[in-house]
């Protein structure tokens, strides 16, 4: 198993970004948070809502950790310079949410998952989709220790087994059972409009929500 890096950088200081920062702090991580602009804009929010986390510029925050969680509106992913994430493991926690992103043809591609769009933009990073399907308030309310009954599950879709394992450890640390569902392309089954979207259930139930995932997508990753 990959050695767990206990630093975590979160890009996005909105509802989801703040909740993930709170969970990671509780799990003993050193947490760096960046918003879209100057850290001054998010400093008070971070200090009060996630005390102990560090509000930094994007350039600064992305240097501090090998794992970067993207928790900004999907429509803004290209506002993160791809060079800043070069060589990093990127956790894509974003969804196409037209009510925030606006009506965007480029994000409504029926052929690929939005995570594949993110991967093709960050072409020098390794993207894994995770922490995207459960509502942010359930993420905060529903953490449980390892082995607790009815521990809730978070799905992981990624092309590289070692990276998936690192993300699985992160999810486990945050208080959820990781569930590997397949390659990055399988992330489509976690998106809005699919049964697993919004899922706040245990591992077996989450797996049952993915019954229509074709075997080719769920094929073993390398």
């Amino acid at each position, binding site marked *: 198993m990959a050695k767990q890096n206990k630093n975590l950088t979160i890009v996005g*200081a*909105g*509802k989801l970004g*703040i909740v993930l920062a709170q969970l990671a702090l509780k799990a003993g991580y050193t947490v760096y948070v960046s918003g879209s602009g100057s850290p001054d*804009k*998010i400093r*008070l*929010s971070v200090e*009060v*809502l996630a005390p102990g986390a560090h509000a930094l510029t994007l350039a600064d925050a992305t240097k501090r950790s090998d794992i970067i969680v993207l928790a900004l509106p999907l*429509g803004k992913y290209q506002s993160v310079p791809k060079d800043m994430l070069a060589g990093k493991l990127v956790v894509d926690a974003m*969804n196409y*949410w*037209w*009510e*925030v*992103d*606006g*009506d965007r043809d480029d994000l409504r591609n029926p052929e690929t998952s939005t995570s594949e769009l993110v991967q093709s933009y960050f072409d020098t990073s390794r993207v894994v989709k995770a922490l995207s399907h459960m*509502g*942010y*308030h*359930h993420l*905060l*309310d529903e953490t449980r220790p390892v082995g607790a009954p009815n521990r809730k599950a978070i799905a992981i879709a990624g092309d590289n087994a070692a990276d998936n394992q690192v993300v699985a450890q992160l999810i486990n640390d945050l208080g959820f059972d990781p569930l590997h569902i397949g390659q990055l392309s399988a992330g489509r089954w976690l*998106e*809005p*409009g*699919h*049964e697993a*979207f*919004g899922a*706040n259930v245990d591992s077996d139930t989450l797996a049952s*929500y993915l019954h229509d995932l074709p075997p080719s997508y769920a094929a073993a990753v390398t």
Partner: protein
Amino acid sequence: METTQTFKFGLDSFGDIPVDDDGKLMSHAGAIRQVVEEAILADKLGVDVIALGEHHRHDFSISSPETVLAGIATRTKNIKLASGVTVLSSDDPVRVFERFATLDALSNGRAQIILGRGSFTESFPLFGYELRDYELLFEEKVELMAQVLKEKPVTWTGTTRHALAGAEIYPKTESGRIHTSIGVGGSPQSVIRAAKYGFPLMLAVIGGSPERFIPYIELYKQAGEQFGTDTSEIGIHSPGFIADTDEEAVEIAWPNHKINFDRIGSTRGWPPMKREHFDEEVAKYSLYIGSPETVAQKMAKTIKALGVNRFDLVYGGGPMPAKARLHMIELYATKVIPRVKELLAESDGISGKTK
């Protein structure tokens, strides 16, 4: 005692379409008249405030809350008349003021505004706004609204509306100020924005544990300290339903809540609601559904935990029988509110918190 006297209890409606005694879905017009009747009953029974939300969809009858409130104004005496929310991003702050100042005149000073970005977006294409601009639209319009509310000549420039130079806006109110809050759903920036302009905060808690908002209240207060603004007024808005027994309340609320949720969810990509999630929300989180005692206990617990001074119960979600809605209002006013007051008075620490 001080707390229970200053504490405000509200009822919020989006103008959901109820069914009549024969189980037939009412018309939009009938649904609007139903809300007026409910507000009259709430006023008679001493509920502090009724708040009506703005939607532009088939399943909610109210797109123009202040017009419905104006109707209510002429038939009620004491109840405060609020929007909940006014979707400011796709409205014009000057017109919003004019309409609510008119309502304030008709109601002898009972008008209130709750400004919000709204969690629905139908108004954007309808009025010619781009969804992708929603953050900028709200930011600029809140800034202008804050100025207009001072009822002095307004000078303003921005990018989302033409500029104003020393404009007087009429009618002026008798009190000189329309009570105006900002409704937020948990975005930290929205909380800070409310504190920046010194607007009271209304927390929309429509799912999950209310306790998770405790840090947001702290954020509001700390931001208020930095800006030097008043942050003493904080309210919460959550959905619920009351019947004579827990079983009856759940039996009426569940199918209607599901219809409501699934209809909204289908446009957002949520799968249909499952019964176990409804039960979990009722048992642990933010659905205030049950007998008067159950709902009162749950409300008191939330009010104490958060130290808020206003609780608005959103009622009537889905095609609920009109009769059940009226009975709910009666139970809320005559049983739940007195019981919550009693529970708050019993608890010691609370008066210091909510003063």
